[in-house]
């Protein structure tokens, strides 16, 4: 397991939710296997292949499933023993269990009142949740007529309405059009900035990257990586950084780089591109702008081919096999 | 990497517009049902029933005891009509066994999207499915009785026998066609409206006019003396039409043309409802 080194001493009072040796099995099938993880405020992306255990982990952390072993602690207390803690948690899950014949607003008010709020409070909170999720216009139409994207938004509103401290969102953008996706991603970033603890599970990696740099990667029921994307990338030793430089004379550039200790490989991938491999690319990145300013090199642009979440995911899962 | 064992290749063949577009639906559905053990058992039993009739007929014909001319005529044709009616149990069983799931499962699994993104119209789909049910209906009614007729004609010693019964196959074809179409449309309609086989089966039995409806209409007829109550009993009306064309006794108190009207009306209503439930534009995307 790759654990990114903390950049500052851990402040455990900041950790709102943690799991300790959490396991859940279904007969012989193990959903999550001995997970110990701390979730701090802000946005965390939960990633993993289908069937890796993401939904199970969410349900356990949200208190919808009882652990077979281990414990989930919210603010230090065992979630299984303190029902009141559910007030702090909001959950957006996959299955559609909406009240089709009610309007969006009616449904939200109803569900919020179930949480124990008075009618006025429920109306207020509903209105705020509708505003935040940009559903005010459609709020007074029946849920039955909602498009897939709107159904997701109303589920999001429902998870928010009681103003929870912790939010678990399982594929929240499923079916949303690009406008709603952008609005929802902005909302999630805001919630993270407000100090809420938000965990978002998504297969659309570039959207996860747009919301946070912190990820939790689950593979076969266990944690494969936990921390900041950049730091995780740097900690993966098996895959050197691959940097592609577009320039007019790749061979001339290659002869400059070959003497560098940190460069392990050079490849003239085309007549105007040079591919560099480096375990510790700091020097490479320092030198590139200098070389680029030398007109005889003709360096026009460069990019790191695997400095993104998609490559990171591939490497981690591949190595985890 | 998209390169698996073989890359994508274009196909050299030509796709022709086929005259019977519904044929693959019929064929696949029929064969799938045929493979089940219960189907073979029932088919065997259905044919066994007709076989027994054949044995009895053999005895009668050889003994020559049916020599009365006018009596012979009536017994001749109506014998085959009775044979067909006698297969009712099997027809009903097959209509329910092969038909209740035909549309409901397609709707549940959204298979209709696959059908209607092909060059198929809703009528093709209906014809194909109806064909499956009809094939079984024919297999246990028309086919065995046809063979019975061939047997009877071959075996009879009376001179006039063929002359009295020559029309039996044509009449049987017509009657079984009507039977299959009506029963089939009704079960398909119900299959497009409900999901659970048990509900569809029970509804079909009720709508067809068996058991409950039959009992109720009889009571009503007794109480009010009004024979038109039977108009709601599809089964009775179908039998009335059968009796009419085969020249047998007609138990219902009204003219057979009314029965024809009922049958056509019920069939049309089932078709219209069925069409409404499988509209491609609603189902695809």
């Amino acid at each position, binding site marked *: 397991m790759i654990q990114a080194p903390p950049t500052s001493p851990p402040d455990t009072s900041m950790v709102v939710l943690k799991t300790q040796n959490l396991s859940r099995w279904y007969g012989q099938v193990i959903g999550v296997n001995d997970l110990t993880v701390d979730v701090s405020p802000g946005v965390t992306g939960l990633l993993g292949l289908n069937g890796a255990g993401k939904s199970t982990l969410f349900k356990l952390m949200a208190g919808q499933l009882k652990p077979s072993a281990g414990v989930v602690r919210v603010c230090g207390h065992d979630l299984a023993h303190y029902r009141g803690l559910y007030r702090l948690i909001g959950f957006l899950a996959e299955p559609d269990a909406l009240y089709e014949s009610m309007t969006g607003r009616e449904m939200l008010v109803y569900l919020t009142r179930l949480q124990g709020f008075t009618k006025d409070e429920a109306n207020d909170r509903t209105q705020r949740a509708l505003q935040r999720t940009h559903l005010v216009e459609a709020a007074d139409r029946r849920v039955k007529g909602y498009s897939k994207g709107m159904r997701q938004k109303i589920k999001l509103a429902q998870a928010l309405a009681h103003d929870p401290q912790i939010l678990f969102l399982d594929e929240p953008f499923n079916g949303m059009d690009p406008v709603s996706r952008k609005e929802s991603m902005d909302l999630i970033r805001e919630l993270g900035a407000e100090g809420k603890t938000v965990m978002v599970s998504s297969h659309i990696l570039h959207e996860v990257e747009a919301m946070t740099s912190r990820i939790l990667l689950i593979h076969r029921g266990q944690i494969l990586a936990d921390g900041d994307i950049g730091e995780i990338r740097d900690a993966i030793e098996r895959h050197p950084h691959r940097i592609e430089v577009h320039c007019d004379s790749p061979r001339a550039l290659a002869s400059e780089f070959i003497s560098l200790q940190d460069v392990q490989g050079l490849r003239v991938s085309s007549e105007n591109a040079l591919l560099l491999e480096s375990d510790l690319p700091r020097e490479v990145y*320092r030198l590139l702008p200098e070389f680029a300013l030398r007109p005889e090199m003709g360096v026009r642009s460069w990019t790191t081919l695997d400095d993104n979440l998609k490559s990171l995911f591939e490497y981690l899962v591949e190595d985890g096999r | 990497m998209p390169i698996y064992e073989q*890359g994508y290749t274009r196909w050299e063949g030509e796709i022709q517009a086929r005259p019977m577009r519904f044929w693959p639906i019929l064929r696949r559905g029929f064969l799938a049902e045929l493979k089940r053990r219960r189907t073979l058992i029932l088919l065997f039993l259905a044919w066994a029933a007709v076989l027994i009739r054949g044995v009895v007929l053999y005895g009668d014909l050889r003994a020559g005891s049916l020599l009365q001319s006018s009596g012979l005529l009536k017994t001749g044709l109506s014998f085959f009509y009775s044979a067909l009616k006698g297969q009712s149990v099997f027809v009903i069983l097959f209509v329910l066994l092969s038909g209740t799931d035909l549309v409901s499962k397609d709707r549940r699994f959204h298979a209709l999207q696959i059908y209607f993104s092909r060059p198929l119209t809703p009528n093709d789909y209906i014809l194909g499915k109806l064909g499956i049910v009809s094939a079984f209906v024919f297999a246990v009614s028309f086919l065995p009785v046809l063979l019975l007729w061939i047997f009877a004609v071959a075996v009879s010693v009376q001179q006039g026998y063929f002359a009295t019964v020559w029309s039996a196959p044509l009449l049987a074809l017509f009657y079984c066609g009507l039977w299959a179409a009506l029963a089939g449309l009704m079960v398909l309609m119900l299959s497009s409206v409900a999901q659970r086989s048990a509900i569809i089966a029970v509804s079909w039995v009720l709508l067809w006019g068996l058991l409950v409806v039959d009992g109720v209409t009889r009571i009503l007829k007794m109480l009010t003396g009004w024979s038109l109550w039977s108009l709601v009993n599809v089964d009775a009306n179908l039998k009335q039409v059968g009796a009419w064309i085969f020249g047998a006794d007609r138990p219902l108190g009204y003219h057979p043309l009314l029965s024809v009207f009922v049958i056509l009306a019920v069939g049309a209503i089932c078709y219209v409802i069925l069409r409404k439930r499988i509209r491609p534009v609603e189902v695809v995307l």
Partner: protein
Amino acid sequence: MSSFDPILRCARLSQSYGEKKVLHELEFEVGGGAVGLLGPNGSGKTTLLRTLLGLLPVPPGCAQVLGIDPGLSPLALRRRIGLVPESECLVPGMNAVELTGYAGELTGMSSKDAMQRAHQVLYYVGLGEARYRDLETYSQGMKQRLKLAQALVHDPDLVFLDEPTNGMDPPGRETMLALIREISHAKGVSVVLSSHLLPDVQETCDSVLILKDGRLRSQEAVSHDPLHEHLLFEVRGRGDLAALGEELRVRGHDFTPIQNGIRVRLKEGVGGPEPILQTALSLPNPVEIRHLMPAGRTVEDSFFEAID
């Protein structure tokens, strides 16, 4: 039909559901390759797709797909196109190879041809080993690929795909997009991809149609090779890139923050990345530039501009 004929053509295409007009006088022409169909919810995308599939009545001459009028000859049309729908679809009681063969037969192939093709196509989409397995054991990714197989079995000239990566995990999405790219670019099958995932469209499509409220807001090519761009650059890396942006602004250029970096618009008359690099080297706190690339106009840019 020559390879220069448009695969899609609409001429003043309108559609209404009762009183409500859903498509307003759409007019466009699309050549071969891969075209993305984009639009917010309620833009009329689904209605347009249904019209092009020949499922909705349309006055003659208003629409043409592969040279065929969907209102006049919907059956002839559907012999030459394939559809990968968004929602789950299975034929009950069949395994993958039976289903794919059946789909081919329903299109008009002989059962022998359909079966042969079914095996080939299932291997192509990566379901070769699993083709006899019970469909209930299929993962989401496998079901999506099966949908692609049934759309390809009859060798269509045009395939419509509606959210083809729905529910697939990252490796699955990669595979699916790669398959789509391959069939549209290497194998000459045209593709219409309807999706809300703009980066997917960026990766696979040559052009996009953007709809809003039943009207065509934009038709644009997707730029894949912006290396000739001189003024617009994307800068990503480690360190305080916003500070780099601010300093660039001081020097007369402009920037906007983007995910993990900044997008720089250099002032006119200055080309190439030099100004950016000089500025970067002049900063007191060094930045590590890991990505410095000319930024073409993305599908996302086109989309948000078109619908505003």
